[in-house]
């Protein structure tokens, strides 16, 4: 018996998390770290809205304002939304497909630590001479000219965090391809697993262009390269292409898992099979492909020429077709269902009109001639917040309520949950709806202030009030979480009573090996089928009880990442401080050394024995 559950001390618990390779604990860490960055990004958003609440404001200076908007966007996309979604993927996907863990538990831990250290590195810029200030898109013509080290923090931090995301994506792909339980065919996978799969494939193909772009930027800024410098034969437009080849798929990496979460919610709380399952799968895959063919719609005004603009405009509009299919399928899932309006369902219902509004403005922007008017105005800001907040963030908040009992065996308060929803939802529309009109009235995005005579005062004030509403909603959520954790009332399994998929069939708290016996999946919504047939344990088993092979914990992922973190400081201060090169070498040596240890030292894991599984403690 290698893992005996004792009452652990605080230090032991910390050590457990630092070394864990269990997908469920890694999920908790993703959620915690992502949640923290979400709060930081949210505070930055509040500062932006305070500054813009009235004309000619000098709450923050122009330079600081640029740093705040850059860090807000970068944090929210790379350090909040994506990691939180990764948290849910880690927590839920292996359980949905009947796996005992992801395919590469060690890499799973490595991916998490890379994300966290990358995020910390990026945010250290605030205390080390100033944050990046060229926007989250960091266009080279601007970022190469930015003084100080802000952009260097951006490039190096994202490189580290991006490596983590990439590793995570590959891990999910391999897990879904190879680790499905017997009977879990591709066309029986729950939609959240499907969207995790396609989003991971997008990560696989979209992150390499970003990595290349960032390397070019690092070389240009820190090591005398000239990739983007036209005076030296480079070309600044190349950055824009590389960034958006990554950037547009990135928005689908965010929204597809959100679609998956809502698909689960609609079926669960309409107590009905998801309408048009196979067309949902088809639409997901199609969106994945089309997502790669449209990046230049972010560059209509660059001067690509009418042919290129026309091609990319048409391709962009085509995405509306599979997206529309999804919307109709959701509506038809609700139609005739026996609906229970729980907090997650409330979010799902709020999501449909909000996301449709964002999609419609997207189509407007896809019309290249019109985009000449809309580009770089507040209309764009309204569009992407409608899809990202109205889609991704609503999905994240819904999933927090939906999966909290699965992850922590506690129910969040439904009453407070609904309060959160209403504050957030009303605040969201108040903030962003009016920004469409600010855009049409000519207010450019990324300006630090505006004049009293421009007629934008009232709308900006309304927008800022809306932001305050959203903040109240999030604060209520935090309070809700604290109360729930302190009360600690066990929720038991199938807490929503209508669970359809495998994750709800598992006894609570989920054992660290997930499934005592690998389940046999007998159809779409397999738990539902078992329940209909009166099966008390909720699962049919595919194998007799036997020993379970589990991986050992490891501290190596942490050390490996620490090496890169140290090396990044060396690269950053290269050519400026004497210690830079030694630090760079030291960091890389730590990383390479720990890789060597990992390769040379065999680690075969351990077995939980059948006899221990059979006693009532279930191997713990």
């Amino acid at each position, binding site marked *: 018996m290698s893992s005996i559950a004792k009452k652990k001390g605080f230090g032991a618990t910390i050590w457990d998390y630092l070394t864990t390779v269990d997908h469920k604990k890694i999920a908790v860490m993703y959620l915690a770290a992502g949640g923290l960055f979400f709060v930081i990004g949210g505070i930055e958003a509040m500062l932006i809205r305070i500054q813009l609440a009235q004309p000619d404001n000098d709450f923050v200076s122009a330079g600081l304002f640029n740093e705040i908007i850059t860090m807000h966007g970068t944090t929210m996309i790379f350090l909040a939304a994506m990691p939180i979604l990764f948290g849910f993927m880690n927590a839920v996907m292996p359980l949905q497909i009947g796996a005992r863990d992801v395919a590469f538990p060690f890499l799973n831990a490595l991916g998490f630590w890379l994300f966290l250290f990358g995020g910390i590195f990026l945010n250290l810029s605030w205390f080390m001479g100033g944050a990046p200030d060229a926007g989250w898109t960091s266009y080279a013509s601007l970022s190469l000219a930015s003084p100080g080290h802000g952009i260097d923090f951006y490039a190096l931090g994202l490189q580290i965090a991006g490596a983590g995301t990439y590793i995570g994506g590959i891990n999910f792909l391999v897990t879904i391809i190879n680790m499905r339980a017997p009977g879990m065919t591709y066309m029986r996978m729950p939609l959240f697993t499907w969207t995790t799969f396609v989003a991971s*494939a997008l990560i696989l*193909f979209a992150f390499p262009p970003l990595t290349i772009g960032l390397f070019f930027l690092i070389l240009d800024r820190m090591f005398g390269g000239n990739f983007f410098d036209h005076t030296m034969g480079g070309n600044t437009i190349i950055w824009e292409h590389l960034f958006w*080849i990554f950037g547009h798929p990135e928005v689908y990496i965010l929204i597809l898992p959100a679609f998956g979460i809502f698909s689960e919610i609609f079926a669960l709380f309409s107590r009905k099979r998801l309408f048009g399952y196979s067309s949902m799968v088809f639409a997901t895959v199609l969106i994945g*492909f089309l997502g790669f063919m449209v990046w230049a719609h972010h560059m209509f005004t660059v001067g690509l*020429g009418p042919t290129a603009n026309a091609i990319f405009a048409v391709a962009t509009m085509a995405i509306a077709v599979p997206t529309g299919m999804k919307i109709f399928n959701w509506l038809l899932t609700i139609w005739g269902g026996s609906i229970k309006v729980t907090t997650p369902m409330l979010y799902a219902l709020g999501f449909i009109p909000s996301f449709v509004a964002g999609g419609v403005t997207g189509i407007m922007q896809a019309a290249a001639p019109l985009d000449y008017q809309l580009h770089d105005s507040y209309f764009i800001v309204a569009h992407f917040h409608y899809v990202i907040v109205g889609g991704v963030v609503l999905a994240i908040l819904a999933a927090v309520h939906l999966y909290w009992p699965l992850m922590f065996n506690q129910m969040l308060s439904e009453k407070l949950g609904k309060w959160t929803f209403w504050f957030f939802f009303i605040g969201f529309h108040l903030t962003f709806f009016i920004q469409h009109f600010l855009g049409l009235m000519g207010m450019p995005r990324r300006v630090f202030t505006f004049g009293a005579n421009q007629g934008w005062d009232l709308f900006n004030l309304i927008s800022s009030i809306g932001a305050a509403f959203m903040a109240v909603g999030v604060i209520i959520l935090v309070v809700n979480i604290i109360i729930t954790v302190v009360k600690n009332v066990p929720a038991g399994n199938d807490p929503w009573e209508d669970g359809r998929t495998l994750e709800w069939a598992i006894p609570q708290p989920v054992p660290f090996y997930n499934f005592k016996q690998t389940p046999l999946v007998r159809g779409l919504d397999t738990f539902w089928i078992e329940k209909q047939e009166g099966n008390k344990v909720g699962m049919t088993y595919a194998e007799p009880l*036997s*020993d379970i092979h589990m991986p050992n914990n490891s501290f190596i992922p942490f050390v490996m990442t620490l090496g890169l973190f140290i090396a990044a400081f060396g690269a950053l201060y290269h050519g400026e401080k004497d210690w830079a090169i030694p630090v760079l070498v030291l960091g890389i040596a730590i990383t390479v050394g720990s890789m060597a240890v990992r390769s040379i030292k065999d680690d075969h894991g351990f077995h939980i*024995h059948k006899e221990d599984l059979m006693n009532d403690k279930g191997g713990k």
Partner: protein
Amino acid sequence: MSHDAQVYVRSQTEFEYIKQKRRKDMRNQITTFGIMIFLTLISFTAVAADFSVYLIVPVILLLAAIQVVLQLYYFMHMSEKNHQVVAFFLYSAVMLAFTFILTFLTIIWWG
């Protein structure tokens, strides 16, 4: 080790079958290897013989593409069963890379 580990003994026929199959695989690999060396020789000769660049470049690219395919199918086992997912991802990547390169050529460098 698991307590329930089972030892599986192959029957004579199974054994014969596997042996035959391995022999065939081996023959295929060696033939492919021969072809690949031959293709490489052609490329080198083309350069050594000082043909026009407009001939050499397309010929080498074509031969390279053939080599990649041979490599994938005969050495990286894509010709075997259960490799559809790998093939799917590979061809998707090829298709995307092609799109990116085409746009870069047409709207950045030639345009």
